[in-house]
């Protein structure tokens, strides 16, 4: 092996020229080394001082000046927006998945806002329906508005102006940490609310004595009475009640914790049933059975839905869910068609109302009207004869308008 190695080495050496690298080369090498080290030192100095200084300057400028535009604000705002949006997304995802049924989420939120934060459920309804904001975003807006002590509509306006949450947080002096804390608190309370109990208000829709349960308006599930079934004797269909219920996770049902027969909130969600007298983009006039004429405001995002619905015509029997806003306007939340105008005209008894509820609500509204003067201005009482005449007049006007339109189109034809 060694011989092999020596043989190969001697062969290889024979292929290499007898060249000698001059010793003087060392000096030129050292010069280059020095210049190399000098430039390296310079680079190190730059890295050590210039880069951090530039970076600090950049961070300083971007942190305090709205370099990302008026909507996004400064670097701090952008970071806060990012943090808040993440928390809000996480909150929505978790909260939406929390209760066993999404249809009860608005009830839970309303109850929680009222009990824990002292926020009027009507504010929640306003935020949701007038500004057309999803429930959990509405919760966040309400919590921030309460902390900042500014009206929700200002916050909504800021969002409409495309301001990011970081900028809003700076304007409202509510720190992102506080906002995140609100969300976390609300979320944990929201998850335990079905078990601990939540408040509901509405009229009794149905009583089932066989299984000691009853239904109330706008709540889709039966509410079971445990133990004291005599409680059912204190209520009757149409009674306005305030109840506290809880979800029994072992029996998969809602159970009554507390019940009190008391008038519904004057501004809370109330449903009206009546014939449609008039409709335009902003308002709707309903003629109730007792002859009252009820004027309801239509939220902007809702008007086109109503206008496009072919079943919504003058004379249709409609049930409308509404609440009274801060300005005293009765705002429509939802509607359902009970019968179209054709059915109403052709029926033997066109003036009959399928729901006894309307009568009860009228009674209740009358009670409320005594406390709320604004209601008096809006609800003008009409007799049923007058109502029928009103409907006929409206139909007549509509027929005339259709006739006019037909004539115009004929004239326009070549």
């Amino acid at each position, binding site marked *: 092996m060694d011989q092999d190695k020596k043989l190969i080495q001697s062969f290889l050496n024979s292929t290499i020229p007898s060249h000698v690298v001059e010793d003087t*080369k060392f000096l030129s090498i050292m010069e280059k080394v020095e210049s190399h080290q000098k430039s390296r030192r310079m680079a190190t100095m730059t890295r050590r001082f210039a880069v951090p200084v530039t970076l600090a300057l950049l961070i300083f400028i971007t942190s305090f000046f709205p370099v990302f535009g008026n909507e996004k604000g400064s670097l701090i705002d952008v970071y806060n927006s990012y943090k808040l949006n993440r928390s809000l997304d996480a909150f929505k995802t978790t909260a939406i998945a929390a209760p066993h049924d999404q249809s009860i989420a608005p009830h839970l939120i309303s109850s929680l806002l009222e009990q824990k934060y002292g926020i009027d459920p009507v504010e929640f309804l306003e935020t949701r329906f007038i500004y057309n904001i999803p429930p959990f975003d509405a919760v966040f807006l309400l919590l921030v508005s309460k902390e900042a002590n500014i009206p929700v509509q200002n916050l909504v306006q800021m969002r409409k102006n495309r301001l990011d949450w970081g900028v809003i947080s700076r304007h409202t002096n509510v720190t992102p940490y506080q906002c995140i804390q609100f969300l976390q608190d609300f979320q944990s309370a929201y998850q335990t609310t079905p078990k601990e109990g939540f408040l509901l208000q509405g009229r009794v829709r149905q009583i089932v004595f066989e299984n000691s349960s009853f239904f109330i308006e706008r709540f889709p599930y039966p509410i079971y009475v445990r133990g004291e079934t005599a409680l059912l004797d204190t209520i009757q269909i149409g009674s306005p009640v305030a109840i506290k219920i809880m979800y029994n996770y072992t029996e998969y049902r809602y159970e009554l914790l507390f019940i009190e027969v008391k008038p519904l909130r004057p501004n809370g969600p109330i449903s009206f049933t009546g014939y449609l007298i008039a409709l335009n983009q902003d308002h709707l006039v309903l003629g109730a059975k007792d002859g009252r004429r009820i004027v309801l405001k239509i939220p902007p995002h809702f008007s086109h839905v109503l206008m496009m619905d072919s079943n919504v015509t003058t004379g249709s029997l409609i049930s409308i869910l509404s609440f009274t806003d801060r300005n005293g306007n009765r705002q429509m939340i939802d509607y359902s068609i009970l019968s179209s105008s054709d059915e109403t005209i052709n029926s033997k008894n066109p003036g009959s109302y399928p729901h006894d509820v309307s009568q009860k609500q009228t009674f209740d509204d009358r009670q409320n009207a005594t406390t709320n003067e604004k209601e008096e201005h809006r609800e003008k009482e009409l007799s049923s004869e007058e109502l029928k005449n009103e409907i006929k007049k409206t139909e007549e006007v509509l027929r005339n308008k259709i006739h006019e339109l037909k004539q115009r189109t004929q004239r326009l034809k070549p």
Partner: protein
Amino acid sequence: MIEIDRELLQQAKDGDRMAQAEVFKYYKDYIFRSAFFMLRNEDEADDIVENVFIKVFSNFSSFDMTRSFHPWLSRIVLNETRTYIKKNRRAYTNQDFALDNIPSRSTENREKAQQIQRYMKELNAKDREIISMRYFQELTIEEIARAVNISVANAKVRIHRATKKLKQIIETKEEN
């Protein structure tokens, strides 16, 4: 090759100019031979010597004195040569082992050298790297494996194959 005195190396590392000159004197021809074997060009090999020493003296502080100096230097030579070849790739693909580059003074020597060059053509760049490290720089198999970044077993195989080719070249040369 016998390793340079550790004390002298330490002094060179500390920035002693005389010690650095000694290190240069000790290794310059060794680096030249290795570079020439791979590049087959005197001027280019000279350039490599310069570049290698610039790297060595600039980065002496990063050298771990508890380790052997020789493999560290060999690694620098290998990297510098590879970088040089990469930079001048076109030139190398077109005139790899160009006969004009043969360093010889007399006609007889020149003919002999040309013949060697032709034999050498049979060795590819990787074989030449391995042979240079094994027979010029006299690195161990483990050191070669570490320098080329391959496993010891793979290094063994490559050394064996390259040596076999080289032996064939030597035999052919002797027959001629």
